[in-house]
């Protein structure tokens, strides 16, 4: 099949794996930032194809997983407000907050609807003018442009009952935060494909420059990932780290200008709370004052404080999602993994989301 088979060819894969084995003379530690990559790497058995010198770690690139418990609690509190409809991506439903989950809130009577895109949330707002329709905005630079577009649309069409709780996050600032921590020594990063379609390759430049870590942007097919690993190993062996694109059919160095303009129009950067990492400056997208009537945080600030009753945030005991997100532990190192924490009764978010590392390990690594 065009555009799929070419990237799953077993002969080419073996050729690339051979090339990596030929190049790699010393241990190298790579991190795939994106949960989509983690999933593909485990699904296609890529770790079995690469030589033992190549160590792979999973990173924080799962939108549901990095959402802080405090932000989940806020979403659940919003759901319990009267005359409110919460719209969210499906994966968010099952993530446990401090005391409840969106799924539980729904069972208790809150009106929560799963949508596949923000535009659906706008449609729900149009159809329910007497209610406030709040979209829980999660994700990285991939989801932000569509959220921005729907806010602009809501303004143009005067849909005043549409609000967004913007929990959107940015990739390069958190990479900086992780590298700054120095907790996990990395030699190369498999940079996220879809995020880079939007932001391009320039925003990663500081990584090789300041941290000496190789950066290669990868697609999501097995050959894309193998090619990316090959380039990372090559850079590492030559001692010349830089930013490279191994996903040329999707990524331009300058990114997608239109999408970036949309983000620029609606959002400004601010701090964001990341699970496992904490507050990272300049890593979150906040809705600009110009569009503040669409900002759920502002529209409901008073009610929210009342609804939450100042209950403290509680993290699940012994759950190591935070460590997994930072790449400091693999899911297999978590005591709860598979024993207590399963996709059916997840303790932490990394087991809930299909993009989460724990869910991928559970599914593919028996």
């Amino acid at each position, binding site marked *: 099949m065009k555009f799929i088979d070419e990237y799953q060819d077993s002969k080419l894969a073996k050729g690339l794996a051979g090339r990596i084995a030929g190049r790699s003379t010393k241990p190298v530690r790579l991190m795939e930032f994106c949960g989509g990559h983690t999933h593909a790497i*485990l699904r296609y*058995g890529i770790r*079995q194809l690469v030589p033992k010198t190549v160590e792979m770690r999973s990173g924080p690139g799962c*939108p549901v997983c990095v959402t802080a418990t405090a932000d989940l609690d806020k979403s659940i509190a919003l759901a319990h407000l009267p005359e409110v409809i919460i719209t969210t*991506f499906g994966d968010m439903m099952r993530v446990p907050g401090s005391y409840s989950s969106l799924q539980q809130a729904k069972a208790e009577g809150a009106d929560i609807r799963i949508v596949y895109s923000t535009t659906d949330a706008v449609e729900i707002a149009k159809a329910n003018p007497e209610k406030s329709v709040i979209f829980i905005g999660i994700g990285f630079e991939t989801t932000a442009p569509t959220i921005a577009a729907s806010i602009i649309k809501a303004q143009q069409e005067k849909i005043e009952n549409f609000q967004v709780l913007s929990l959107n996050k940015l990739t390069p600032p958190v990479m900086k935060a992780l590298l700054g921590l120095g907790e996990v020594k990395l030699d190369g990063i498999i940079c996220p494909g879809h995020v880079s379609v939007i932001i391009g390759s320039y925003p990663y430049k500081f990584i090789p420059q300041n941290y000496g870590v190789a950066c290669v942007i990868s697609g999501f097919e*097995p050959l894309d990932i193998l090619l990316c690993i090959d380039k990372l190993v090559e850079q590492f062996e030559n001692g010349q780290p830089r930013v490279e694109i191994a996903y040329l059919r999707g990524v331009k160095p300058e990114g997608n200008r239109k999408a970036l303009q949309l983000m620029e129009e609606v959002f400004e950067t601010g701090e964001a709370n990341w699970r496992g990492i904490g507050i990272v400056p300049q890593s979150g997208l906040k809705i600009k004052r110009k569009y503040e009537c669409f900002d759920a945080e502002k529209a409901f600030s008073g009610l929210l404080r009342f609804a939450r009753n100042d209950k403290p945030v509680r993290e699940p005991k012994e759950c190591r999602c935070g460590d997994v997100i930072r790449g400091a532990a693999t899911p297999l190192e978590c005591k709860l993994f598979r024993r207590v924490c399963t996709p059916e009764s997840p303790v932490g978010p990394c087991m809930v989301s299909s993009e989460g590392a724990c869910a991928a390990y*559970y*599914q*593919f690594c028996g």
Partner: protein
Amino acid sequence: MNNSYLSFHDRARKNEVILLAHGSGGKLSHDLVEKKFLPFLANPVLNKLDDSAIFEASGHLAFTTDSYVVNPIFFPGGDIGKLAVCGTVNDLAMSGATPLYLSLSAIIEEGFPLGELEQIMQSIKATTEEAEVKIITGDTKVVNRGQADKIFINTSGIGIIPPGIDIAGANAKTGDKVILSGTIGDHGIAIMSQREGLKFSIPIGSDCCPLSKLVSEMLDASPIIHCLRDPTRGGLATTLNEFARQSNVGIVIEEDKVPIKEGVRAACELLGFDPIYVANEGKLVAIVDPCEAEKVLVRMRQNKYGKDAAIIGEVVNDHPRRVIMKTKLGPSRIVDMLSGELLPRIC
């Protein structure tokens, strides 16, 4: 408010929508049965309209039931009516039974268009005829608006298992071949393509079809079929895991051998789904004695519902209760049951 109330009744008077009174047991109920059900289902047992259907049956019987709440109720390649007949017919067929009789029970939401009910009954008629089964008892209930989503259907079925046939999930033996009757994922993707908020156009219809004839032809070719199951919700992966656990054996399949339509693969790539977890409504997996597998396969390919049948793997001694897939790239990976729901990726 008053106007819409009037117009609702005006429409109702023209017999366009279901009213609560259609479920009251009175005259409108009788009208509904006589005008909307009997014309499509008529047979001597049902026509008596007594409290129970009375019929003769003897031998080894199979009995099954299932409820259908699919949304949307009309989808490319079928509708809830076709699904309600195929689902129960196929459950009987997977036990090796020849389906004979079905019951049909409909729970309908007030305001449901009668035209759509007729369309559903038309498709039930066509499907029962194709599967050569009769609906011999039934029931209708109407519930208030909002208490059901348009229409829910329950069917139960009875079939007769021919002598000498022993098909069960626990019967798989080391060395047996795993046969899949055709392409996977068609139904799930066809439904997904119609879901609110995810509409995409795809030239793929549901594979929803009755498999009873295919099964009887397979049993004709060889009675040594150990396991049969239709991989509906949970997909191929879940069915294979059920066999592995019930029979306490390992199963190995080859990714390359599993037939998948191009459109289904493309949709799965786009949404981040693995097709082995996507639902089917017209496919079966058979575990067959290795000496008989080729014979069964040849016969299957002569049936229109088995033309893409393929041997996709085998039952092994190693890793009992586990399913392993040799990926296209060479390495193997574990195939677990579906857990949770299939949800499109976010990023």
